[in-house]
């Protein structure tokens, strides 16, 4: 007979499953964490390599000569920006036209749901200026984008200067097979979102913008420049985009290949690569770089202007110049040559970048871990949930022989089954909906009654709703008639565990970092909660492992990893601003982290909280 259909063998398997469940779960958890930490160990990673044949090697001759002129343009731009007090639209239009581009502008406006305290804006009105360099001989079917943000103050002037210098140089060449669009966007991400929505004729975030008068073809790749100094010591590439999406690895490979060729120092996450992978400090350096990438990806926000392109399947990255205390400085001409080389190679593309990986983690710029290698870490954590679900199923089908009333209790168990599960589910999700809707919609009421600003009101309302959810179990029990039964909490836990497994699985597929971090904290909670554990201690552990506290710890860890540790007071202010940015990202760009946590993860956690207080 087969393994599962033979009743004797089945009983043996089931008894083994029940006996060894807890040890296997612990083992899987440790294995998952170890696997994840091992990903940064260099022998387990692969060296990056160029996968796209059309881009081949760095075999082009870069001849960009006009770094000094770009600096002069940057200074002019800065002067005009100060004079106008914003974006010097007329000057930009005139300058781009003088360089032979087809220039167009787009104006946009947006009222934020609540004021953004980090960037100090509430009602945003702006103009994007872009010039199109038409390919001399090609049909206008494909395009490349080079963008620089127009930032307030003294930031990113040199980026705009370099952009205009490159535009002048590119216009004199005849080998362009794609149109090149030079874009200067105002109000960084908001302007970029307006431009992209106008270009692709979509309107997903409720922004108001004028339609674009001029268009290139379908955009194949985009680069965003961020340069705030005349000379730089290193170039940093930023890959993480909206919702944790990453561009094709070939773009990072291209950047690294040209850095090698031209001899510029290149970094990722702002950290230089080290060669001593076998020493402890070398390994911890790689782990820290990878953790930075994981945390940036998990936050779901675009970490550069490029982040919004990824949604339209346009491979994009941001290159930012860093000027630190090193002796060897790179001037603007060399940076221009690097960008020119990258664009000549992108020009050779025949299709969109698709040969290399879309899902990867990078412990350094030359090594990467692909999805096939990092997914098992999450899989091991998900297996814990499945084992627990199997265990519960076994317990439900063959109830433990602890009957007090004998037959009567067995009869009783069937009827409150559905109701005792459905009620906590509905109430938890209603709380989640409240957490999603109330902060933004009731901010005026909160501001009326409490002496706080709107942003603080929103965040504090969110925290209040979150904490109020903790009082729920007592309310649920008032609705359900009588105390919860033995059977009831098992059914609820089975449903909750499966729900969590599906939720985390789907999240990990799209945004592995978010799924993994949530799994790290929620899986132990989900696996070991029963009404029988000591209540006070486990309540404290629960709250520490809840999504909100995970976020708090992540904020402190993130600051620590960037070598900028914060005190408790500053950390708390940072935490508040992170929550407000998360909510804003959702309303402005469609980031999914906030609705995911509010509408799905938090209710799931509340279900487990319910189980804890079942009796």
């Amino acid at each position, binding site marked *: 007979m087969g393994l599962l259909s033979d009743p004797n063998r089945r009983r043996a398997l089931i008894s083994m499953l029940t006996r060894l469940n807890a040890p296997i779960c612990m083992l899987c958890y440790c294995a998952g964490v170890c696997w994840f930490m091992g990903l940064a160990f260099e022998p387990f990673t692969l060296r990056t390599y160029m996968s796209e*044949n*059309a881009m*081949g*090697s760095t*075999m*082009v*001759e870069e001849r960009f000569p006009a770094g000094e002129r770009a600096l002069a343009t940057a200074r002019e731009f800065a002067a005009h920006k100060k004079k106008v007090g914003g974006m010097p639209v007329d000057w930009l239009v005139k300058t781009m036209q003088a360089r032979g581009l087809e220039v167009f502008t787009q104006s946009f406006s947006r009222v934020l749901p609540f004021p953004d305290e980090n960037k100090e804006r509430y009602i945003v009105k702006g103009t994007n200026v872009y010039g199109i360099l038409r*390919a*001399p*001989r*090609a049909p206008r079917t494909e395009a490349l984008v080079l963008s620089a943000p127009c930032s307030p103050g003294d930031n990113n002037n040199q980026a705009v200067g370099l952009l205009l210098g490159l535009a002048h140089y590119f216009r004199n*060449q*005849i*080998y*362009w*097979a794609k149109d090149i669009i030079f874009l200067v966007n105002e109000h960084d991400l908001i302007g970029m979102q307006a431009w992209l929505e106008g270009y692709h004729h979509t309107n997903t975030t409720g922004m108001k913008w004028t339609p674009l008068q001029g268009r290139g073809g379908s955009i194949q790749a985009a680069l965003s420049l961020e340069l705030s100094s005349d000379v730089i010591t290193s170039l940093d590439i930023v890959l993480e985009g909206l919702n944790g999406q990453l561009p094709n690895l070939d773009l990072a490979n291209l950047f690294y290949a040209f850095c090698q060729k031209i001899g510029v120092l290149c970094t990722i996450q702002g950290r230089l690569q080290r060669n001593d992978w076998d020493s402890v400090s070398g390994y911890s350096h790689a782990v820290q770089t990878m953790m930075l990438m994981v945390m940036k990806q998990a936050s779901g926000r675009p970490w550069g202007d490029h982040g919004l392109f990824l949604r339209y399947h346009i491979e994009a990255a941001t290159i930012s110049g860093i000027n630190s205390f090193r002796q060897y400085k790179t001037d603007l001409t060399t940076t221009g040559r690097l960008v020119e080389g990258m664009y*000549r190679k992108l*020009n*050779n593309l*025949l299709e969109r970048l698709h040969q290399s990986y879309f899902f990867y983690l990078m412990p350094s710029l030359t090594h990467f871990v692909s999805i096939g290698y990092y997914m098992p870490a999450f899989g091991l954590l998900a297996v814990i949930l499945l084992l627990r679900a199997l265990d519960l199923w076994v317990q439900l089908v063959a109830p433990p022989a602890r009957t007090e009333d004998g037959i009567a209790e067995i009869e009783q168990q069937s009827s409150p089954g559905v109701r005792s599960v459905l009620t906590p589910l509905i109430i938890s999700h209603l709380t989640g909906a409240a957490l999603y809707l109330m902060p933004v919609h009731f901010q005026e009421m909160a501001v009326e009654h409490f002496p706080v600003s709107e942003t603080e009101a929103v965040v504090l309302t969110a925290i209040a709703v979150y904490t109020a959810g903790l009082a729920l179990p007592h309310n649920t029990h008032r609705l359900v008639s009588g105390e919860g039964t033995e059977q009831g909490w098992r059914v609820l836990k089975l449903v909750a565990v499966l729900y969590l497994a599906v939720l985390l699985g789907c999240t990990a597929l799209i945004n592995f970092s978010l799924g993994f971090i949530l799994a790290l904290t929620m899986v132990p909670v989900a696996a070991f909660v029963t009404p029988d554990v000591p209540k006070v201690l486990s309540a404290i552990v629960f709250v520490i492992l809840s999504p909100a506290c995970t976020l708090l710890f992540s904020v402190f860890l993130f600051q620590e990893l960037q070598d900028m540790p914060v005190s408790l007071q500053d950390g708390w202010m940072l935490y508040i601003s992170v929550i407000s940015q998360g909510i804003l990202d959702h309303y402005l760009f469609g980031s999914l982290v906030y609705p995911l946590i509010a509408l799905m993860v938090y209710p799931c956690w509340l279900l487990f909280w319910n189980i804890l207080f079942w009796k």
Partner: protein
Amino acid sequence: MKLFHLFSFFAAYLVADSSDVENSVGQFFSSGHTNNWAVLVCTSRFWFNYRHVANTLSVYRSVKRLGIPDSHIVLMLADDMACNHRNPKPATVFSHKNMELNVYGDDVEVDYRGYEVTVENFLRVLTGRLPLSTPRSKRLLSDDRSNILIYLTGHGGNGFLKFQDSEEISNVELADAFEQMWQKRRYNELLFIIDTCQGASMYERFYSPNIMALASSQVGEDSLSHQPDLAIGVHLMDRYTFYLLEFLEDIHPASKANMNDLFKVCPKSQCVSTPGHRTDLFLRDPGSVLITDFFGSVRKVEITTEAINLTDPIQQQEESSVSEDANKEMYSYVDQLPVSEIIHQKPKQKDWHPPDGFILGLWTLILLVFFKTYGIKHLKHIF
């Protein structure tokens, strides 16, 4: 007396001369080929395969320079590099870096271009099975006195050549096409040159007579490209064809260089891969075959004031009888796919062990029998 001697001497000389003319007439009509054709094919498209087009155009240039006219050349180019949007020097295709040699020039006649370069069209050109509406320039109108040069370049592998990223021609197909050409008397002698990765695999299966083949690399080796040009941004030529072109630049229509010199082109030190050649199907000795027999179109012209009687076929019959015998030998069918040889080639194991399962089973059996007979209590005596 002296006059008589002079006269007899003169008469003898005349007689000798006339018989000499007869001899040379015989030789004139017994030479191998009377016309030359060339089929030059580039099978890959896309900008980064610039070098394949440059390869083909270099050979085209050499072949034209040595005398084969456009009407006798079938040139197939799968993509247009000269007018590609990415070409910084439009209307040119360079074969040397620093742009020394423009092989596109202003006198290029491409017969099959772009998507017309397919396996089907190539085979139809070779075998002559073209639709009636095909223009003359697209036909290979060779006869049994034609020497044909076939040059293929592109991306290839072990036993196949890739056409345009969508289909392949296998070495068996090619061999069969040549056999069809032989049976339809479409060639006198054939020179087959291929410059791809693992090119030698493409001539392994030839079985028709009078074919000489050269390849740029052996099976398992890659043919490498020669030099990148940074201004254009691509590799300009493949190594083998680059050195072939250099070699051919020294050949002029009256050159007496022979095939042995061609086999020496691009040794391993220059080419990195090992070029190969195959001459077992060829009747003549390669040392006696001139380069211009295939690459040029040399017309034999002998001026004579004598009147020659052509009613007697002089030496031609002897020669043709000899060649007929040789032909008759070649009529036997060669096994195209030596399946039996392949099947019987089992790899021999160096040291023979009995299979593992057998040993395990044997010991298990021995142990079982032992314990069944003597009981388990004897276990402690063993361990």
